């Protein structure tokens, strides 16, 4: 699974740390780090929570264009 740089960029644009985002969606910082590093596939509920906090759509954060 590839790194999710879109979440990292969206988080940075809102001036949030991993810890801030993790607390806002109710997970640990380690889990948020694993999602950004592509080591963990979050559930749809968690994806939606992240999108709402970062004010993005699911497509903008989680859709991967195929080559």
């Amino acid at each position, binding site marked *: 699974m590839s790194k999710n740089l879109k979440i990292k960029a969206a988080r940075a644009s809102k001036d*949030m740390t991993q810890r801030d985002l993790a*607390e*806002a969606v109710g997970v640990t910082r380690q889990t948020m780090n694993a999602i950004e590093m592509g080591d963990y596939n*979050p559930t749809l509920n968690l994806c939606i929570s992240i999108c709402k906090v970062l*004010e993005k759509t699911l497509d903008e954060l989680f859709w991967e264009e195929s080559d």
Partner: protein
Amino acid sequence: MKTNSNQGSCLKRFDEKQIADRYRISAETFLLTFNLIFFSGMVKIFDGQWAVPVTEMVVLLGLPMTYFGVRSALKGAYFPGQIEKHGWLIIFISIAIGLLSMSFSILQIMKSGSIMDNGMLSGDLFFFFLGIPILATPIAFLIKKMNKEEAEE
């Protein structure tokens, strides 16, 4: 910084990744236990008793317990991120009990001069195998904690 107030802002004690890790580690531990019991049985059938019953029991329990404890600690599956005061007390008591248990076993082995008894692992190893999970789990937790703090600095 603007956050959506509709989201759960308080950090739950354990999150979905921790729960998923627990399922994975539990399944792996089950397979390990299954294999250990199977091989122990095979050795008994073809070669006879390999340890006195009490040592055999603690080996078959202690190794999966160690695997489960160490993997859970390293993955953070059963432990909250922050350790409260009583948490540190439990960690140090656990390390002390583990060390005591292993020291007692080593003293017994030194006294008897061998870990074998009639071609089987002797009962002197009971406290050694009992001490392994009690000692390994808090040490793994401390290593994880130290790595985490280094990563955050």
